[in-house]
């Protein structure tokens, strides 16, 4: 999930000092208005928000959402931003967790014209923009696609104006694992993106009950799949992996075994469980 605990610049023991620089003002809570809701899959929907005084964000960042009950009780959770910085509105895509406290409210109850309190953008690590360059390798599982979609939308928007050659400098590949075909979030949008762009490749894998007629991959992402889909390590791709802990652990470990530079592999994990403690 967005925001996180631990990890990893190449500075260990190098003595490179980072200047302490704390902004004077906190990241303020803002009252956003829900302007649209898009049902992406049976369990996930995109909430499109008008956020007053939104200062912009980078693809991959997240926001904190805060709900308040009538007795004053509050609950906060973090959600990745699904929209690109170029998009006119901030959008969040939320997947329903059946035993969740906040996500069922956002997927079942929240309506257009409701207000939603949030603050952000947050996070400065799991972020990418075209200036960082490519190749770009995105690996996602389930709703882990959300921050990766922001990167793909940003890439498409930023390159739209640029010359056709610019795309060749930031080729992108997405490997996306879902349980079933009807749970593939942004299915139609991904299809449109690859139609418009020969330098983008999208590979889907379905891990459960593959639809009859599905000719694609039908297993969890593994080392062999990554060896086929990912750029060779020599191409030095910028890698972003987002999904549940088991997927992220497996993918990141396999990428390192394949020879990718750990410093170029950025991860974001979410999900209710850490697997084995």
């Amino acid at each position: 999930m967005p925001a996180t605990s631990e990890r990893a610049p190449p500075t260990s023991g190098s003595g490179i000092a980072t200047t302490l620089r704390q902004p004077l003002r906190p990241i303020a809570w803002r009252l956003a208005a829900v302007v649209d809701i898009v049902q992406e899959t049976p369990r996930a929907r995109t909430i499109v928000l008008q956020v007053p005084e939104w200062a912009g964000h980078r693809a991959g960042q997240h926001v904190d959402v805060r709900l308040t009950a009538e007795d004053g009780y509050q609950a906060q959770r973090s959600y990745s931003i699904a929209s690109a910085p170029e998009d006119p509105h901030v959008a969040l895509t939320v997947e329903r967790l059946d035993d969740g406290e906040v996500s069922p409210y956002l997927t079942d109850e929240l309506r257009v014209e409701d207000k939603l309190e949030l603050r952000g953008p947050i996070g400065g690590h799991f972020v990418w923009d075209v200036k960082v360059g490519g190749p770009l390798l995105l690996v996602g599982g389930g709703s882990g696609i959300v921050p990766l979609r922001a990167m793909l939308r940003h890439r498409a928007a930023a390159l739209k104006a640029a010359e056709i050659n610019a795309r060749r400098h930031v080729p992108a590949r997405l490997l996306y694992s879902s349980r079933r075909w009807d749970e593939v979030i942004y299915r139609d949008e991904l299809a449109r993106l690859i139609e418009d762009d020969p330098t983008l490749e999208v590979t889907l894998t379905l891990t459960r009950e593959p639809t009859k007629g599905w000719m694609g991959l039908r297993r969890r992402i593994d080392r062999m799949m990554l060896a086929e889909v990912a750029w060779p390590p020599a191409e030095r791709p910028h890698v972003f992996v987002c999904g549940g802990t088991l997927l992220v652990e497996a993918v990141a470990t396999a990428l390192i075994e394949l020879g990718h530079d750990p410093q170029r592999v950025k991860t974001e994990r979410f999900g209710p469980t850490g697997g084995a403690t």
Partner: protein
Amino acid sequence: MTSLFSRGFRGRPRSQLDASRLPPGQYETRDFPVLSAGPTPRVSLAAWDFAVRGPGGQTVRWTWDEFQALPREAITVDIHCVTKWSKFGTMWEAISIDTLLAQAAARDVQPAPYLLAECDGGYTTNLPLADVTGGHAWVALSYGGEPITPEHGGPARLLVPHLYFWKSAKWVRQLRFLERDQSGFWESLGYHNYGDPWREQRYAGDE
């Protein structure tokens, strides 16, 4: 402050809440989520060592076997992650930083007012000396009676339970003492420099 009620939001039954144990904005989880910003580093115990480094560069090192032989404490604490989950009553076996500093002092390595914890994989986090001494912080070697797994920071992780859990650095290898404070990894990426969960110091500028 808040004038907004979220229409139709009820939340979890309040009877399940132990408000005195839950810092603001947190919720209790029974799981132990894994969060990290990159791949899990794996290091052989033969190559592993732990270091305390003074501000002048003087360093004390322990091999894995030497480190294992240090006296341990059994600790049961609540932990609080900045991503909003809290987990109550986590059980660790850990070496007190006081123990490490006493051994370092015996070998003429003195601490300084700040420290940077440095880890395999390059992760760092910064802490004031006062927050890791006086029985407030440890280097943990076991969780729930078992060696700490790599994804939870094994073989050794820092344990500073009174601050947000990103300060409890996984895969810790060195405590580097500094005369002046220096931001760690998340602290230079928009997160709070100190990170007190009871004051909800999540992000730079909070409080």
